[in-house]
């Protein structure tokens, strides 16, 4: 069977005529992702298969359940989504419906004492953070931008500006309510227990968060639709209302008050980019020492692409700043937050200064262009707003070139090696010659998590949207991934999504068998985002190679 008029009528009966549409004009807005080279290429390949057959907006968990049951009844695929930012939110085959959660946008509870919130899928970080800040709390700030869905970000994947304390999205998830691909509803954590409140995860018994997510990513909607979560909130000693001055893109955010201090740190003794590796290793020392001392709220190593994109007010400004070498190299950025007291802040500053001296770094002076541009214009983005799509500002397209999760040292290794691959690809084959430099495959974002106990990174590429440049970007990304496998790096463990399970699963404990068994069990009709979640059955090599664009 497939998506038919009969199925459409059934959806209308569930949500009301005004909350479902199969009009091509209305569905067109759910048919393409542009910012990733992979998305651009995919749109070229899939064409109108990426336009959903229908978009449906449930208003409750029960309506979601009914929709999913209808999808099973008539055997058509559905894709649950949040704000729809990432390419897993788009169909790849005709006859797919998209579930848009816009009507499910309540903050159901915000518990100030126990520091958690209970939210529906269309609650954005920005709204939740605004409410939290009034109560001396805040949320992690996603690099995807605070406009994205908090629930979707935590269920899928998120990296944050303050993850030195908060860790990644998965760690901020408490309980959840999930409509399984077969339409059954399950709740996890204390949310599952009547009268317990929604304050915690971990059980009862095994923690179903382990089922909802795996590795660095969730299952891309392949295991049903999450309709409610409870999530952690964190202490915030800054202002209740975020300070701003100016308007629009010339709006800057000044001091976060006496309970917050920003620092930029550099290693001027290293030539850049020739001694990029040394600079990163020295940064690693900084983070290791800070981690042992357990100081700071934000600690991160920002490559030039982050510095330029966050701080520029226009594209021209960004390129002018590059020309003027405002950020001649990477910098470490540290934020201290007085959650205990101002004395605590003074103490941490004293420690930071001592550590900076110990590792051979220096603080960037206030009158330096880098400080004026970053601290004055952009640092507070790391707390509120996130990057949104400014990483695309240089060329209106960008991609993560490589990433990994491991120790800080291994992350430095990974960035070094992957940048070598990127530079070699440029030198040998001219790949990326038209990309924005020096932002592409130079430096890396080092994001230590939880006081530096572990770490993640990205390197990035900045092609234009033209298909040939996107293909080059994909080639560079592929070569980086290949090098990770050839080096047997810990990155092998994170490349698991969709058809990549078939490709990499045999190298990673045959995990594809387990995940596919789970998929078969819970999604017997393979209707829950079949394009991205892994397939229920092991794919023949020829098929996954084709899907991966390798053939």
């Amino acid at each position, binding site marked *: 069977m497939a998506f038919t008029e009969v199925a459409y009528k059934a959806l209308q009966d569930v949500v009301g005529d005004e*909350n479902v*549409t199969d009009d*091509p*004009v*209305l*569905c*067109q*807005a759910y*048919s*393409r*992702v*542009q*910012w990733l080279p992979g998305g651009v290429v995919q749109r070229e390949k899939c064409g*109108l298969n990426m*336009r959903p057959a229908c*978009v449906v907006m449930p208003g409750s968990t029960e309506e979601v359940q009914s929709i999913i049951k209808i999808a099973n009844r008539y055997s058509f695929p559905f894709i649950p989504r949040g*704000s*729809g*930012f990432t390419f897993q939110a788009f169909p790849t085959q005709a006859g797919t419906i998209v579930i*848009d959660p*816009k*009507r499910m946008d309540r*903050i159901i509870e915000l518990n100030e004492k126990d520091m958690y919130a209970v939210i529906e899928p269309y*609650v*954005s970080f*920005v*709204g*939740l953070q*605004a409410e939290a800040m009034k109560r001396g709390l805040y949320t992690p700030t996603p690099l*995807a*931008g*605070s*406009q*994205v869905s908090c629930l979707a970000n935590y269920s899928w994947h998120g990296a944050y500006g303050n993850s030195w304390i908060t860790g990644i999205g998965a760690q901020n998830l408490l309980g959840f309510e999930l409509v399984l691909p077969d339409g059954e509803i399950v709740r996890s954590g204390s949310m599952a227990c009547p009268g317990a409140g929604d304050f915690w995860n971990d059980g009862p018994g095994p923690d179903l968060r382990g089922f909802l997510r795996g590795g660095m990513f969730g299952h891309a909607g392949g295991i049903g639709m999450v309709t409610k979560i409870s999530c952690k909130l964190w202490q915030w000693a800054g202002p209740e209302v975020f300070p*701003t001055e*100016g*308007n*629009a*893109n*010339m*709006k800057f*955010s000044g001091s976060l008050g006496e309970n917050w201090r920003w620092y930029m740190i550099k290693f001027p003794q290293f030539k850049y980019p020739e001694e990029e590796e040394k600079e990163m290793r020295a940064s690693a020392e900084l983070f290791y020492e800070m981690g042992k001392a357990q100081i700071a709220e934000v600690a991160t190593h920002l490559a030039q692409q982050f510095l330029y994109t966050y701080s520029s007010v*226009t*594209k*021209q400004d960004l390129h002018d700043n590059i020309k003027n070498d405002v950020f001649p190299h990477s910098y470490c950025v540290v934020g201290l937050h007085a959650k205990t007291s101002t004395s605590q802040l003074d103490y941490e500053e004293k420690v930071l200064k001592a550590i900076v001296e110990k590792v051979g770094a220096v603080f960037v002076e206030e009158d330096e262009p880098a400080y004026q541009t970053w601290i004055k214009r952009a640092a*507070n983005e790391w707390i*509120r*707003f*996130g990057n*949104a*799509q*400014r990483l*695309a*500002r*240089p*060329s*209106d*397209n960008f991609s993560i070139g490589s990433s990994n999760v491991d120790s800080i040292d291994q992350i430095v290794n990974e960035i070094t090696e992957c940048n070598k691959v990127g530079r070699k690809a440029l030198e040998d084959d001219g790949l990326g010659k038209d990309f924005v430099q020096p932002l592409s495959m130079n430096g890396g974002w080092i994001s230590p998590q939880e006081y530096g106990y572990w770490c993640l990174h990205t390197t990035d590429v900045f092609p*234009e*949207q033209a298909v040939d440049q996107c293909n080059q970007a994909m080639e560079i990304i592929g070569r980086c991934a290949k090098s990770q496998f050839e080096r047997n790096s810990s990155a092998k463990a994170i490349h698991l999504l969709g058809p990549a399970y078939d490709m990499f699963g045999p190298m990673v404990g045959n995990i594809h068998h387990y995940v596919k068994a789970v998929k078969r069990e819970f999604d017997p009709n393979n209707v829950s985002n079949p394009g991205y979640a892994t397939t229920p059955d092991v794919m023949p090599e020829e098929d996954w190679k084709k899907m991966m664009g390798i053939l």
Partner: protein
Amino acid sequence: MALEKIEYDATHCQRCSTCKWTHLWEVKSHRFARNCPSLVYGKFDSYSAQGKNDIVTGLLSGELSWEENKDTLLEVIYRCPVCAACDVSCKRVMDLDIIGVLDALREEACEKGYGPLPAHKEFIQSISNYDNVWKQPRSRRAGWAKKLGIKDLSKSDEKAEVLYYVGCTYAYKPGMDSVPKNTAAILKQAGVDFGILGAKEICCGGIADNVGDKKSFEEIAKKNLELFESTGAKLIVTNCPGCFMTFSEKYAKMKKINTSDLPYKVMHSTQYIEQLINEGKIKFSKNIDKQVTWHDPCHLGRRGEPYTHWEGKRVQFGLTEPPRVMNRGVDGIYEAPRNILKAIPGLKLVEMERIKEYSWCCGSGGGAKSAYPDFALTTAKERIEEAEATGSGTIVTSCPWCEANLIDGIDGIGSNMKVDDILDLVVQAMD
């Protein structure tokens, strides 16, 4: 083709959804975090700027066609006040001409003969027939000015430094003539040498441009430019933000020059009155014991920036050659009205959450109120709820369309709020 002009902008939308939210630093609550009236009403992403970008891409690629999809296309395109909230939010992170995309879609609709909508055609026809949008006789245009002894600059022997341009709605709409009367009284008291065009004043034509009928707009604009020149006035002051934006931005754009190169300067009445206050020509001596909140009209605020003309192309990385100065809502008229309110003794101004360049639209602009009254009403109700949340009893503004629609919004939710034009308060407080 209109769409080709903005093809780059539409096809490079990142689908990040920033356009759907108030400036992410300025969001002060979950309740009032959204910025796009079209999206809030229509719900499907297609109604947002991102959706419209996808629609442009679809039309250009042939995935959508006017022939097959005209009804929904027209609804998506026109059920939008073109308030530019999306444009301002997007330009925080990208450099895409979103307002250009919205305009181009309307222009395209008209070029193809599908637009504008019947309600808009009525307005344009009315301008053609009566020189105003309200199908009212020309002779009554200056009825409000009877016996006020104001110079009529349409007469060749009358000259003045300032042309006070009234606008159709203030001239004709019942109950709104207090605004031009107040303006005249203020200018007189301040000793300003001003005049009006009287019955010869014609519509600014902004509405035609707003709905994509560039041809009609140009005809009207040309007539007005001749009229202005004939008066010799170097400064035009108007109360209507729609007219203000039209004279400042749209006429310059039509002539392919910068606003600063126009043969006249145009100011909104709030700017001018602020200037008069600063010059000591207006003084406030009477207390107004009231708490109010200020509603930023879109055409005064984020769309009130002077226009910088650009002709060029996109080059590598999407840079523009020559470099383009885009309006981003930075220099809209936000402070002048606020300064006036703050200068009035006893008056307490409490801001709403969404203000200035990230203000929530009243819902009536872009031809939305005439074509989609329910949409306009819903949007206004949202604004009234936001105003009520400040604890103020009065919402103050300086736009006839905002005023009318906000009043409808008040009635719609049964609120006790009042709407004041800012000049009511000025006159009350003046010596």
